[in-house]
């Protein structure tokens, strides 16, 4: 259970990185990527995954 970022649509704005409660999001080459091992899909932190809610490009989905 983890979220994933579509690197082609990501504009590398960093909005998701600032929201992630488990610090699972970091910059990889020209786009951000989510560490599937530590992503909890915000279980216990929010009703829905925060990264997907803040993403202006709507490019974060469930893996």
């Amino acid at each position: 259970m983890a979220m994933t970022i579509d690197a082609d649509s990501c504009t590398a704005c960093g909005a998701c990185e600032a929201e992630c409660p488990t610090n699972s999001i970091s910059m990889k080459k020209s786009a951000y990527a989510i560490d599937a091992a530590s992503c909890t899909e915000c279980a216990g932190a929010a009703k829905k995954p925060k990264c997907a809610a803040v993403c202006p490009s709507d490019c974060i989905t469930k893996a």
Partner: protein
Amino acid sequence: MGNVIALDGILGVGQLKARQDADGGCSSFQCGSSAGADDLPPEVWEKVKNHPCYSEEAHHYFARMHVAVAPACNIQCNYCNRKYDCSNESRPGVVSEKLTPEQAVKKVLAVAAEVPQLSVVGIAGPGDSLGAGARNTFKTFDLIRERLPDVKLCLSTNGLALPDHVETIKKLDVDHVTITINMVDPEIGAKIYPWIYADGERHHGIEAARILHERQMLGLEMCVAAGILVKINSVMIPGINDEHLVEVNRWVKQRGAFLHNIMPLISDPAHGTHFGLTGQRGPTAQELKVLQDQVAGGGTKLMRHCRQCRADAVGMLGEDRGHEFTAEKVAAMDPVVDDEARRTYREHVDAERAERRVSKAAALAEVIEQAPEEKAILIAVATKGGERINEHFGHAREFQIYEVGPKGVGFVGHRRVDQYCAGGEGEADALDTTLNAINDCVAVFVAKIGGCPKKKLEAHGIESVDQFAFEYIEESALTYFKDYVVRKGQGTAADRSGFDAVIRQGAFTGQRA
């Protein structure tokens, strides 16, 4: 040098001399952002006098730069997307490259070394300056304060996160905050904002607009209470919020906003924004002016000289020297900032502006005496700064529009055009754009103009005037107006009231070869 005013042009002894046959006194008819030293409390004047966005007069003399360190945004607006960038693109929300705070500071130093007119560094995106916790924005300001204490700092935000950060903004000595407020009624807001992100959740529709509205008002009140000058930006969207902006103006006036800037919607379909794709049009020049005139006056001043700069713009308003300061070029520079030159420039401008106030008043007194009842006219001016008519018609990328009449000279706005004379040859298409852009004007003031465009303008009913080349704009406009009134009486001058003009969409960079 681009079109930054040459220092010697302004500091030249002969040119500094202004006509001094007046009794003095201020008679500016529209306070607007043209408010000067006499109209404002001294501590406020001190804050705005060298800020090209907050003082219309200052925008002729001082330069600003935006550093693009804030790519993340917390709301979606129907007139914005940030995906598209080309060298001909100029909209807020568009940049060519994002910077880290360290890169941004080096860029600021590089520009300060090259452009002594630099007085303001702002952060306006390309997302929201307070998005993603505002970390990059505040770190950048911190670093700039250390290196260039005399530069003014400002930021621009949609206001959603503003209440959380007012304290930090105050602590960092950021004097100027701009909030984009397009509505005070959530039902109208729902037509402009599809969603916002607040408190860890995405909100849609009227609820989203209501949250945004409440935070905007709270942020505005908190800033005013903290002594921060607040400018309100509003995008005029015909059929959605055009009439409503009168109400917005009332709300922000009541809450102590310093300046209200109503800007036309930019909605070229090629930009791929929601409004662009759905065919939502922007206002015409006269629609914009009518609304601006309607809300002018009262405690909050009206800004009319906004250029809707990119979030990485560099230079005087109306020009962009960003291409000279790309990350790659800046990395190779070793800038040395000459604080002495910067101070000298500010002192000369102070002196020049004081003299100007006297000569403007004298010119106006003559008009009032000769034509007290005459209707005001619009004129277009080709200028590259310094409040002078100092640009060739064919080289102008924009014309500044002034209203002149027995109540004085007032700045109305600027109109973008295509450069008529791109490679030495005049281009007919570009001339048509210019004719559309200044169609509501009686005359165009230029430093020089070719015979062919002069004839075409004449056939169109617009007089081209080069007799005031390199003179000051406002004094020349008044002198012209006196003569115009006489000629109109004889039936030899045109009356162009009732004409409208087109606001240019899209491509404009203000770059020069």
